[in-house]
């Protein structure tokens, strides 16, 4: 553990925490707007789990950074260029089907990642993963079932789900591409090489999409730049103006 570069570890933890933070915020945008009450509650509960996980990841990131920044500071006081989430999670909600497709694609990666992280050589990371994996197991069951229900539903719901898959598929690749941070984490035994998660992801996604009568688009093109912070899509800035509105309007405000 001692040979892990702390600034790279901080970077890795921000990636985990920013994924759950940004997706948690996106999903919470549905609160009060979902098609039926049960779905509204389910989405709100999913968002709540993700925000809870964010507190643990960014809390640990702040500890590792050792500059007295809390999880709240990291979530509310950074601007777009400091966020390290993958581009998939910042994509807009679209219709309910698009939201559930985005959720499923993320959940399938997230579950594989967390399962691997339960074996991290860093006990703090293994503990957060063990806590989160139970919640995410539940998320993927629900998002997978919903993708099947809508994909293999009416001609209208099928059309929309295929459209959502075509739109979001180019954002999948980024979750499996390693950079220097991932390589350092893998070498130290902190986290898996993301490429090793691809088989578990593909197996689950192919099974669900087949049941959903949906077709995975051809081509391996992947939008990148979110998790490295090189370039986010234009959507993240708009999201932050909502999420961070209070701290931007009233800096330092507390309850």
């Amino acid at each position: 553990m001692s040979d892990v570069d702390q600034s790279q570890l901080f970077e890795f933890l921000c990636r985990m925490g920013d994924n759950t933070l940004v997706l948690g915020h996106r999903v919470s945008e549905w609160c009060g707007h979902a098609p039926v009450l049960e779905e509204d509650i389910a989405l709100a509960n999913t968002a709540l789990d993700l925000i809870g996980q964010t507190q643990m990841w960014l809390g640990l990131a702040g500890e590792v950074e050792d500059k007295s920044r809390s999880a709240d500071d990291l979530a509310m006081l950074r601007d777009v260029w400091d966020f390290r989430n993958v581009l998939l999670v910042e994509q807009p909600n679209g219709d309910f089907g698009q939201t559930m497709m985005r959720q499923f694609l993320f959940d399938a990666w997230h579950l594989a990642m967390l399962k691997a992280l339960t074996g991290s050589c860093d006990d703090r990371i293994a503990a957060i993963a063990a806590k989160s994996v139970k919640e995410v197991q539940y998320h993927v069951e629900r998002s997978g079932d919903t993708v099947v229900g809508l994909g293999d539903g009416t001609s209208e719901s099928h059309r929309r789900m295929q459209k959502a898959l075509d739109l979001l598929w180019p954002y999948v690749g980024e979750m499996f591409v390693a950079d220097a941070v991932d390589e350092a984490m893998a070498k130290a035994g902190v986290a898996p090489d993301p490429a090793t998660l691809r088989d578990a992801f593909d197996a689950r996604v192919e099974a669900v999409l087949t049941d959903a009568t949906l077709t995975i688009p051809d081509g391996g093109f992947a939008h990148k730049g979110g998790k490295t912070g090189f370039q986010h899509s234009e959507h993240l800035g708009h999201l932050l103006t909502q999420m961070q509105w209070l701290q931007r309007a009233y800096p330092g405000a507390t309850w």
Partner: protein
Amino acid sequence: MKPAAEKIWDWLEQVPDPEIPVISVVDLGIVRDVAWDGDTLEVAVTPTYSGCPATRVISMDIETALHDRGVQDIRIRTQISPPWTTDWLSEKGRAKLIEYGIAPPQPAGGGGPEACPRCDSRDVERISQFGSTPCKAQWRCRDCLEPFDYFKCI
């Protein structure tokens, strides 16, 4: 004054869960340890779900209850490992849940509830995987037609 740990556990048995007030925080299985560290009483609390909004209220309720009984110096330690499981719900807690209209969990990873908590029918169906709190799902009885909460089995 440093009351013995058993006494503290007895007191915590009387602190209700804020969202399911018929059971105590001890019945819910979230109080993991009670120990004196010098003059400070440390209570280890495990959150049910990582985003459960009741967690903070629970910590406050525990502190208040212990303050009221004369314990001055209290530290609540959030312990996430090992993660909370519904297997930690006490037998007493399970019985109280049924009485209250909530179906208690099956062993972790288990399927549906054993029976409707109101009429004891086995003919039940799931309405939604999620429910009124992060720890519960929505089910319905096909006999008495009443909806009811069921603990997610994690």
